Every structure is written in structure tokens, then in C-alpha cells.
């Protein structure tokens, strides 16, 4: 599942001493980690632990109160970083532009930056949509798609960028198991194909242990552990163990008469 990456096209990510508070409430309390180029790094943790806020900092949508984030060795807020590196983010909701068709959404990066002629963009869009199993959906509007299809369209939009770093925010939430497997396969395939670095935020244990090279567990804005899936599984911390082994047991809840 985790092939050795030899020809790195991906870009490294370094997060150092990251702190962020909203209205006096600390959300991130000194986060430090590094992601190697081409690595699939999964950040796990319960809801409200600061995972999505962390992701927004890495892509530059939020500014930290303290600490720094380096993409390929350059601070994320510095001028030209977004031009220098190809970054993409797959939002939890897909965040497709509702006024555009799926095809226009997928080709938006190329058309807005005028990177390819319209005919070429149409060909690339069709190719990427087919890759994520959305062949023929190009002319549909986002509100005509199911949740899983929207996420796959968002992945296709990210693929078009040929990203060096892809951030996934809860890529399998609200999806049926089959769609979740498709998304997980897509994350791994992307690394195999273009050696992109992937940073996945999720509380889906199957996804995390299935695709990750390394996993970080975050709780209340602090990192509890970082390691390979096996190391995290063996990590002897009650919070981590409770999170990883949480399961519904019907026997604990006797049927009411």
C-alpha cells in the first residue's frame, strides 16, 4: 500500500510551533511536524481538535498567531509561493462553484490562468473526470451530483493542477463505504502517478491506516503522537487508544422492553 517514493515531484511541508486562537480560545497549541516530499501524511483526531484549521494554515487560508509553515522551504505567506509551487486542496464539502458546470469547475485553474487552449482544457477535463469515475458528468451542475460525486469532482479539479502538494479535508466523510474506498484508491494512485505529497485530515480509521505512510494524532490543538501506522497503533496513550478503538457495542445497550 505504501510504495517507496524514489522520484520526488512532491514538495516538503514543515510546520514549526504553530499556534492559533479564535476569540481567546486556543485551537492550535504549538504544532510541530514535517512531511517529506511524496509522503502520504494523515492527521487524525476527534471532531473539533483543530485538524481543519491546521490544514487551512498550511494552504495559507489562515494566518498563525505564532510559528511558521514552510512549503518546499519557503514560508507559506511569502510572495510567490503559490506561483512557485502547485498546491491543491480538496475541501470537505467539495467546494465546487455552484454557478459553473462540473467541467468548468474542473478546468477552472487552467482556464483562469490561461495555461492551455480551450480544446486542450476540454480534453484534460474529460480525461480527469474519467479517471475519477465521472465520465459524462462534465455538463452537469454541482447540485445534480451526489456527495461522493462532488468529492470525486473536487479531486479531479485538484488533479488538473498536477499538484506537488494536495491537502484533503475529511475526504471520506458522508460517503458510503464503496465511495470511500474509491477516494482512498485515488489518493494512493495520485502519489504513484505524479509523486505528489498528500496531507490528509480525517477521522476515518480505515482510510488513515490504509493509505498513510505516517499518521499524526491531534487532540485539543496538540499533537499526541506521530509515527507509522504500526507505531501509532502501538502507542500507549489512553486518549489515542480510546480514539483508535472506539466502537459501538450493542451488548452494552440492552434492548428496551
Amino acid at each position, binding site marked *: 500500500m505504501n510504495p517507496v517514493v524514489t522520484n520526488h515531484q512532491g514538495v516538503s511541508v514543515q510546520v514549526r510551533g504553530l499556534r492559533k486562537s479564535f476569540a481567546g480560545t486556543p485551537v492550535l497549541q504549538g504544532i510541530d511536524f514535517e512531511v517529506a516530499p511524496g509522503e502520504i501524511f494523515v492527521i487524525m483526531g476527534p471532531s473539533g481538535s483543530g485538524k481543519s484549521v491546521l490544514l487551512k494554515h498550511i494552504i495559507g487560508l489562515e494566518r498563525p498567531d505564532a510559528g511558521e509553515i514552510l512549503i518546499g522551504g519557503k514560508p507559506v505567506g511569502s510572495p510567490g509561493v503559490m506561483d512557485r509551487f502547485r498546491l491543491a486542496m480538496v475541501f470537505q464539502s467539495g467546494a465546487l*462553484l*455552484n454557478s459553473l458546470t462540473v467541467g468548468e469547475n474542473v478546468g477552472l485553474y487552467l482556464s483562469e490562468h490561461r495555461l492551455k487552449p480551450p480544446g486542450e482544457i476540454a480534453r484534460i477535463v474529460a480525461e480527469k473526470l474519467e479517471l475519477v469515475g465521472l465520465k459524462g458528468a462534465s455538463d452537469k451542475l454541482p447540485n445534480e451530483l451526489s456527495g461522493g460525486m462532488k468529492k470525486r469532482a473536487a479531486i479531479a479539479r485538484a488533479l488538473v493542477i498536477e499538484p506537488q502538494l494536495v491537502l484533503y479535508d475529511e475526504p471520506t466523510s458522508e460517503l458510503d463505504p464503496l465511495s470511500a474506498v474509491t477516494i482512498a484508491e485515488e489518493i494512493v494512485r495520485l502519489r504513484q502517478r505524479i509523486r505528489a505529497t498528500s496531507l490528509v485530515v480525517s477521522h476515518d480509521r480505515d482510510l488513515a491506516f490504509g493509505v498513510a505512510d505516517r499518521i499524526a494524532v491531534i487532540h485539543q490543538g496538540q499533537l499526541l503522537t506521530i509515527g507509522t501506522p504500526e507505531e501509532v497503533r502501538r502507542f500507549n496513550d489512553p486518549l489515542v487508544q480510546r480514539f483508535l478503538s472506539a466502537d459501538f457495542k450493542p451488548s452494552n445497550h440492552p434492548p428496551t422492553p
Partner: protein
Amino acid sequence: MFQHIGEMVLMLCRTLCAWPQVWRQRQKVLDQLFDIGNASLFMVCILSLFIGGVLSLQSGPVLADRGLAGVLGAIVGTSMCKELAPVMMAVLIAGRIGSAMAAEIGSMQVYQEIDALRTMNINPLSYLVLPRLVAIAVALPLLTIFSILIGWFGGAVVAATNPRVGVPFQSFFRVLSENVDAGDVANGLFKSLCFAIVIGVVSCQQGLATIGGPRGVGRSVTKAVVNSIVLILILDYFLTRLLLYFQ
């Protein structure tokens, strides 16, 4: 309030910096122009016709009682082009188009579409705000010209048909043309251009500042319309004072 004004000025400056991209965004400008015209042309006709009519109806009998009915064309003509058409059209467009702009951009903000644009290195100001600002800055003066003409026509119809006024159609327009010149129309168009920028900037800024869910969008829409109208009326006074120096 002052923070909002500061944000609006900043947004206007940043949008103007993106001006060189306006040609690239021409299709979006045309789409917005079509939306603005399509949504408001009929309302502009109705509103202007009745504004001109009621102006004649209010001032006509008073002037006629004093033997001054002949100057009605000048009063309606000047009032429509210098004051009523620019202000009333701006209020109408703030309600119909400003609210739609704030709602659309606000929804995009709430549903992370604007974040998605930023992650693709697409500047939301040049992609969303610039086409809307250019479209409204072109459309509102055009609608104001249309409103002036319809308002004059409405005033003339009432002047001619109301027995208490009794100013013939031709006489109304003869006096109007003798007293209203291109400078008066330009005065109104300048005002409407300023109002258009106010509506565009306030609505887009409120949309981009939306937080929360659908309730936040509703709050932004209300703020966009109310703030636009308040600013239009305040600005109208100062623009009138300013333009008096050029007469």
C-alpha cells in the same frame, strides 16, 4: 462602521489594481450586465413613469394656480435628471442587484467556494468583484438615462391629461429642452456612477465578510441593502454640494 468603510476602501483599491484583467473577465461582465438589465429594466420603466407623473401631479396644480404652469417642463426635467432618476434608480438597484450580489458572494464564502478559488491562486477580487463592479458602473448610468427619458414622458403625460395642470405635450417638452442641457444630464450620470460604485463595493464587501451559515447570508444581504441606501443618500448631499460649484 468605520472598520467597514476602511475595508470597503481597501477592497475598492485592490479591485482597481486588478483593472488590467477586466478584458479577460469580459464574458463575466457581459453576463452581469445582462442580469442587471434583465432583472431591473421593467421595474425602472414603471418606477420612472410614476415618479415623473407624480412630480407633475404635485407641482403642476400649485404652479397653475399661480399662472406658472408653463415652467412645469423645466421643473420635472431638471428634478428627474439631476436628482430623482439617479437616486431612485440607485435605491432600486441596491435592493434588486446589490442584494443579489451580497447573497451570491456570501453563499460562496459560506460554502468555501472562495477559499477554493484562493487555493487555486485565483484572486476573488478579480474573479468575482471586478466584473460585478464594472457591470454595475456601466449599467446604472445607462438605466438612469432610460429612467430620465421615461420620467420626462410620465411627467408630460400627466401635465397634458390632468385638467388642473393642462400643459400640452409639445409645450412641456419645449420648456424642458430650453431649460435642461447636457450638463444637467451629465450631473445626474456622474451621481449615478458614484452610487453604482457604492452599491458594488458595499454589496461585494458584505458578501465577502459573511460568516456563519444561511443566517449569515441573510444578515449580509440586509446590511448590504441598508448600508448602500444610507451611503447613497448621504453621498447624494455632498455630491450635490460639489456639483453646484461646476454650474
